[in-house]
């Protein structure tokens, strides 16, 4: 195919330079940036933005399972409660907040889903409306016989908006990814004070 060693060398060089250029471009565009980025530590006294939601952590505590915002816990069970002010940042009423917070596996059973309650009138997981902050309580049932944790580690998950998804061509929030972690002191009982006004 190639008439002599010179042109073969030339072809190798062109191919090599092409590959190198492609790799460099991908690097510039951030294809490798996602690797090994340490998880961001989020300040508990502040606002956390997750795309759809604006979170303002208020307090965390453990309590006996009775009269905890009407959550249907097993009788006598202890629960870990995390109260947070949530604001819907999107243009539509939504209840896509079930995966926003993940408690660390050391404190709660990873298979147990929290009850999410509107503290205003103990409605179980209602839709939250655009631009209206509401105080919500995430209630995890603690495994029986475990000591109450001294602190709560939460991973905050954010999603990305797509004008048109690949399946239906409709707008929506997709690709959940961790935005950072958060550590709160865990108080005892529902009288625990808020960590920020």
């Amino acid at each position, binding site marked *: 195919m190639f008439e002599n060693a010179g042109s073969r060398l030339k072809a190798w060089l062109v191919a090599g330079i092409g590959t190198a250029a492609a790799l460099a471009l991908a690097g510039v565009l951030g294809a490798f940036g996602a690797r090994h980025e340490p998880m961001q530590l989020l300040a508990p006294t502040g606002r956390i933005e997750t795309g759809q939601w604006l979170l303002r952590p208020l307090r965390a505590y453990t309590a006996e399972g009775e009269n905890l915002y009407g959550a249907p816990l097993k009788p006598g069970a202890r629960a870990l409660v995390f109260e947070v002010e949530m604001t819907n940042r999107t243009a539509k009423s939504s209840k896509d907040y079930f995966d926003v917070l993940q408690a660390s596996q050391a404190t709660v059973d990873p298979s147990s889903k929290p009850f999410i309650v509107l503290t205003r009138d103990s409605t179980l997981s209602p839709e939250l409306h655009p631009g209206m902050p509401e105080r919500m309580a995430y209630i995890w049932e603690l495994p029986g016989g475990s000591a109450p944790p001294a602190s709560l580690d939460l991973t905050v998950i954010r999603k990305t908006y797509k004008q048109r998804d690949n399946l239906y*061509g409709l707008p929506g929030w997709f690709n959940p990814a961790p935005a950072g972690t958060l550590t709160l002191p865990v108080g005892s009982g529902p009288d625990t004070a808020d960590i920020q006004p």
Partner: protein
Amino acid sequence: MMRKTANIVLLLVAVAFCYGLQVSKPHYGDLIGPIPARGKMAETIVGRNFEARAEKVAFARNLKADRFGETKILTTGGVWAVVTVEFAARAQSTSVAVASWRGPTGLAYDQTERMSFADGLLPVAIDPGLPKKARLVFELRPDEASNATLLISEKLMSALDSQAEISLGPVVIAPDGLPAGTVDTLDMSQPI
């Protein structure tokens, strides 16, 4: 030379034309969306399967409702909007289940889910020739109260089916930031 220039011009025209086609093409979401039936307050809006007529809008700071015999006061961080709507079925019995309040800036407030125990709310079953009133209850920001549009459809996925779009008109905002005429407590246990 002339020929080359003409070819380039033709190529550019073709690119511009294709780009025009691409940007003006309706997207799938628009093609299969609901079909609007527009109207104003107190007008009868006729959809494929149902008719709707918005009679009045009331604003309140709190709602009072009966829940299993006990009185419950529902508070809100914004303001409650209660719209009384008369529905009627057209050719066959059906039910209307979905409504939302679209504010002047385009924010969409779905019906509240905090009153699922109360009577007279959606979903409402309707029969031909027998008009029936229902209340639509929304919780919204006071600045989304004026010049809003009420969207009503039979089902959540109202693809290619009618959606009544009722313009509710301007609402005067009082100095306290709430719509003028906002009552302190609206009793939802009263008959419509």
